[in-house]
């Protein structure tokens, strides 16, 4: 069964359509990349999948592991195994990263009928995951994303992903604003989560990230539609030639 199955998804904001019939299927173990010029609707797609109610879905369907995703609240989606690494992670003053992560992890565990983790086990898990991302333990006591550098925010997203262990991870421009060292670390973190049971959807504007996280499939989104799909070589071609040569819409996939 596919982990994600998007059929003819149409969505927008009041009075304006942004996604105009998106089709995409991801089966467990696959890494897909969505590329496309600025404003093509990549973040909209990511946010719609996560359940942001600023966007109105006007048509189509989405299934996560066979379940109707669009029926679920954002928290139910997260608990059901969908994770979105935000393009712009949100600062939450007054809430420490560890308190937040523990609450999130326990919410997900509770949903699956698992007992809550106690403080000791939680800390052990955090230490292990933070090592993976070369993060200082002092992160935990800082307020969520508050005063974090761009790179720290992105790393924090990947840390959350590693802790919550989703079935489907959507990474929205996780590479933007990262220097090369940070990019390597973040990519290493993502690669370590690659596995036969998980699907990954990378949203990116540049090909650069795909040197580190090599995708199985690459799709080009333009004006709210996937106009071309291919393998990792498509990304290299886009890098060399830009988006201009993709004039005509691709045949429906």
């Amino acid at each position, binding site marked *: 069964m596919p982990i994600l199955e998007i059929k003819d998804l149409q969505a927008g904001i009041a009075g304006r359509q942004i996604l105009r019939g998106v089709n995409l299927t991801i089966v467990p173990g696959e890494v897909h990349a969505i590329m496309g010029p600025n404003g093509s609707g990549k973040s909209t797609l990511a946010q719609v999948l996560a359940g942001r109610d600023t966007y109105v879905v006007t048509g189509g369907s989405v299934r996560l592991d066979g379940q109707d995703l669009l029926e679920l609240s954002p928290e139910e989606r997260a608990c059901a195994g969908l994770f979105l690494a935000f393009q712009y992670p*949100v600062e939450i003053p007054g809430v420490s990263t560890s308190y937040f992560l523990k*609450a999130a992890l326990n919410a997900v565990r509770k949903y699956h009928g698992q007992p809550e983790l106690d403080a000791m086990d939680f800390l052990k898990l955090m230490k292990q995951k933070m090592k993976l991302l070369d993060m200082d333990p002092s992160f935990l006591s800082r307020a969520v994303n508050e005063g974090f550098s761009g790179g720290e925010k992105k790393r924090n997203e990947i840390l959350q992903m590693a802790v919550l262990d989703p079935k489907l991870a959507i990474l929205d421009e996780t590479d933007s604003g990262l220097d090369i060292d940070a990019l390597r670390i973040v990519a290493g973190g993502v690669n370590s989560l690659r596995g036969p049971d998980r699907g990954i959807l990378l949203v990116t504007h540049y090909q650069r990230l795909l040197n580190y996280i090599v995708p199985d499939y690459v799709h080009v989104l333009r004006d709210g539609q996937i106009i071309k799909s291919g393998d990792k070589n498509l990304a290299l071609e886009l890098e060399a030639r830009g988006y201009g040569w993709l004039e005509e819409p691709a045949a429906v996939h």
Partner: protein
Amino acid sequence: MTQVMTNTSYLQRLLPTGSDSSTSGPLWLQARREEARRQWLRVGLPKNSDEQWRFTDLSPLAETDFSTPAAAPAAVPSSDGRLPGLEGAALVLVNGNLYRPASRLPPAPVKIALLSQAAAADSKIFADLLGAQAHPSHHGLIALNTANFSDVVLVEVPAGVTVAAPLNLAVHALGNQPFTTYPRILLKVGANAAVTVVFSFTGPDHLAYLTNSVVEATVGAGSRVELVKIQREGTAALHIGSDYIHLDRDVTFQSLSLNQGGLLVRNNVTVTLAGPGSQATLNGLSMTAGRQHVDNHTMLDHAREQCASHELYKSLLAGRSSGTFTGKILVRPGAQKTDAKQTSKAVLLSSQATMNSQPQLEIYADDVKCTHGSTNGPLDDEQLFYLRARGLACNQARAMLTSAFASDVLARVWQPALRTMLEDLVVTELHRLEREEF
């Protein structure tokens, strides 16, 4: 409002009956009572047309048929208003009178004295402190308190003394039909002393009663003083608190005004920075629901140079509740290098809640820094979505954001045990607001 101005029958009604209070006690007291009575009859309740009372309509006070102030009862219910989890001394005041059986008096050298029991020789300190700051001419409620108080409690911390545990004044209102109470408290802290005083106000739910309290504090040079007010009056109570704090030089002063109870609440806080080099930090946290109204009115009188004042007032408003913050700052001539900062922040948890904030700056010195800012709005959608996208249920996410909003104010409290107690109190209170909201 017209009623308040035309119908003046309430004026007499709210004064003590008989000749009792104006002809007992030392002569100086009788004279001050008489002056206060006259002032009250002249001005009555503050009116909305007065700029300083624009947002708070006191007409319910004129319209309620209060019984005469309740005398000290023989016994106090077990919930006598003392705070759980606070060690240290506790003075329990019932309707303005010290209730000894429930009190745990502080050990020497802290001194507690009552005007009602002061020998003639001891009454001088009362004569000096009482009304030195809270003068009946300020507004009608000071006059009314002065005409009515049944006792005056004096707490004295001598120079050089550090009181380790917070000193709790549990101010309890007790009665079973509409009544009035007039707590009157004096606090005298000598030079180079340190103390935290916690005032907690409680009373019966579903009963219209008035707590009209006046606190006058003087703080000696070089001292560190923290005053925490926890206003948990009953659900139909009218609470008017007027706190005056006079700071000598090089004082570090902090206050917290935590409001969760009462139906109609007005907190007047007046801090006079009377010596150079002092710092005053005023914090506030109001959590309201239903039709509650909380009006925080602060006045910082920068009388001398090199002083700093820092105000942070926060409000969480649910239901149809309303809030007001007025921050008056007076920088007197010669108060150079004044650094005054004022911030009011409100989260409106429902579309029917309202908040008004206004600075009032009067500056008569040129080398000063005064800033003010206010923000009012609902909980941040992006923050809510971020938390929910990580699996937190909507109400859990909201609770996390509201307690985060309150956290910086609470984090400033000096005493760790007190801080923990307040955090628990606030968490419980925030659940009440959440229930209200949906």
